[in-house]
């Protein structure tokens, strides 16, 4: 499962030079227009049946990128293909059909379920909108809640009467009820306790195994992504800086930012407290005014003059290993395995 190549014929989702920009206006008469490049020229393929993990810090554009797939945000350039068809050129009915093949689970289950609806009503809603019969709705809801281990007695309660883990199971049930091919998971366990997180992660693995689901999994937690993802994309300031099979990324990161993320992530072993760390200087820069050249250059320990001027492209350095760094060939970056 781990050696999934970027075979185009196998692609369920494909982003080609996708761009999403936001315009910031300031002041009473809304002048001083500035551009935030939330997703900046990102090309990425998700193969059928694989889990692609998307990691990066807040503001790196992970969520915006994910929203482009079901067209919850409009592209400002490039294309997004789902099963070979252009989602952003689809007509109203085609778009609905696309969206029925995708499910989304958000970070905070308490706010993504309607507080005034029973859990049953929330889970039924996609089926109702899809015009399914009463009998089918009843059958699908029963099947789905069993799949996600949500007790049927919880269906007639309101979200606030459920625990965080139960709420997240309900959200997953709602996302699965139309039997989608793709599940977009935006930090689905970040708000949960460790023991509940483990239950949800195992559930996601089981569901994928059983139905061959494709996952786009967004997280800032590198241990979680390692447990779940076949490949990982690392984002920084709207750009994809590295894409690699998960085990290879952890064994040998090629981008300084990936190395810094891995190095900052606590290893769960007090003996490794004084390990050599690969550190970035300072805070992430503002998206409104990103640095010239490589966006990481003001913080990067490996920065050279060239980096401050020329933006590196994402290139395939080794088979399956994509990296956007001028110095990727010559750097030998610390890895998890080196601990």
């Amino acid at each position, binding site marked *: *499962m*781990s050696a999934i190549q970027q075979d185009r014929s196998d692609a369920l989702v494909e982003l080609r030079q996708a761009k999403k920009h936001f315009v910031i206006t300031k002041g009473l008469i809304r002048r001083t227009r500035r551009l935030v490049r939330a997703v900046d020229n990102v090309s990425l393929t998700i193969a059928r049946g694989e*889990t692609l993990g998307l990691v990066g*810090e*807040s503001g790196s554009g992970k969520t915006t990128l994910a929203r482009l797939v079901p067209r919850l945000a409009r592209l400002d350039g490039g294309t997004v293909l789902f099963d070979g068809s252009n989602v952003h050129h689809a007509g109203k009915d085609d778009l609905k059909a696309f969206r029925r093949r995708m499910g989304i689970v958000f970070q905070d289950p308490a706010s993504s379920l309607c507080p005034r609806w029973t859990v049953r009503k929330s889970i039924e809603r996609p089926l109702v909108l899809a015009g399914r019969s009463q009998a089918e709705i009843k059958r699908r809801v029963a099947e789905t809640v069993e799949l996600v281990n949500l007790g049927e007695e919880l269906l007639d309660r309101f979200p606030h009467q459920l*625990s*965080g*883990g139960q709420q997240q199971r309900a959200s997953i049930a709602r996302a699965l009820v139309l039997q989608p091919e793709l599940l977009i998971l935006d930090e689905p366990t970040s708000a949960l*306790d*460790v*023991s509940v*997180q*483990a*239950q949800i*992660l*195992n559930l996601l*693995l089981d569901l994928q195994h059983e139905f061959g689901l494709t996952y786009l999994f967004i997280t*800032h937690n*590198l*241990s*979680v992504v*390692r*447990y*779940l*993802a*076949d490949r990982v994309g690392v984002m920084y300031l709207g750009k994809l800086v590295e894409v690699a099979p*998960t*085990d290879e990324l*952890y064994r040998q990161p090629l981008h300084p930012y990936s190395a*810094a*993320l891995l*190095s*900052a*992530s*606590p*290893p*769960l*072993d*007090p*003996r*490794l*407290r004084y390990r050599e*760390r690969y*550190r*970035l200087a*300072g*805070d*992430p820069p503002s998206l409104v005014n990103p640095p010239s050249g490589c966006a990481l250059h003001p913080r990067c320990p490996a920065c050279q003059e060239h980096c401050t001027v020329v933006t590196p492209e994402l290139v395939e350095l080794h088979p399956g290993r994509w990296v956007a760094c001028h110095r990727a060939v010559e750097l030998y970056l610390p890895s998890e395995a080196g601990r």
Partner: protein
Amino acid sequence: MRLSPSDSRAASAAVETDAGLLTVEGLSVSFITGRGRVHAVRDVSFEVREGEVFALVGESGCGKSTTALAIMRLVPPPGAIEQGQVLLGDRDLLTLTNDEMAAVRGRDVAMIFQNPLVALNPVYRAGVQIQEAVLQDNVPRHEAWRRAVEVMGQVRISDAALRADSYPHELSGGMRQRVMTGMMISRSPRLLIADEPTTALDVTIQAQILDLLMDLRRRTGMGILIITHDLGVVAEIADRVAVMYAGRIVEQAGVTELYDAPLHPYTQLLMRALPRMGKGEGRLETISGSVPSLMAEPLGCAFAPRCPLRQDRCEQGEPEYTRLGGGRLVACHLAGRAGE
């Protein structure tokens, strides 16, 4: 003994002592609600030594934050401290008058919170807010400002003099947490309570803040009580750890001992629920069931209903603490044998 951060000679001496700084003894906190009494903290005892980082760790609702608030005497109504002692040196903070307690906060014990944007005042400049803290010590304004800028340097804010003039919304999340930390250490407290100080931050910024706390501890000799749900954070900075479950400490140990060989079944399961392997390399353990209601005090061990090693006696009496070597404590009837 009050230490100034610049007094490194005194600081290094303090690090080596393991004199008790804060002693919490038999602390119980309840919240009286319309549906009954919630026993949020039950008979919690621990000690934070000078120059030590002590972690209270547990999942949501285990009582760790309420314990921290009780130490500061900031438990919000309808919560009330029912019994226990909170000794700072030889003073019991729970017996002080409100005015006396107000003087203790910030001067002797300071606290930083999870979300600095909420804790900082949005309409005052960062430097002014730190200056305000320093002014409590009756120093002249210009002296307090100088100290505020100095402290901002100590919490590694670059261009401190410039940043002192920034409003909180102009600062990044990591920077705000530094400002709050700066405010709290500006009066050189002996104890810093940090309640989930890095939970809202990105991982590279979290690493910077944890480094900063370690550095401050080393330079000033202050004790740090860190409250967190994150076993990764605990592994990075704690010297000793207490694990809480359903309002009670279930295990206490040195950090290496705890990670090498957790003794309480809850701690063991928690450690195995943490993802440390790649896809297909294993499966996470989960803890069946859910956290018990804290409305009724449990008859037996609060973890028994979820415990894979449960025996009949676990449901009869709540386990006493078993003391093991090296200051280890575990509240389990199977103490010391649970790992077998």
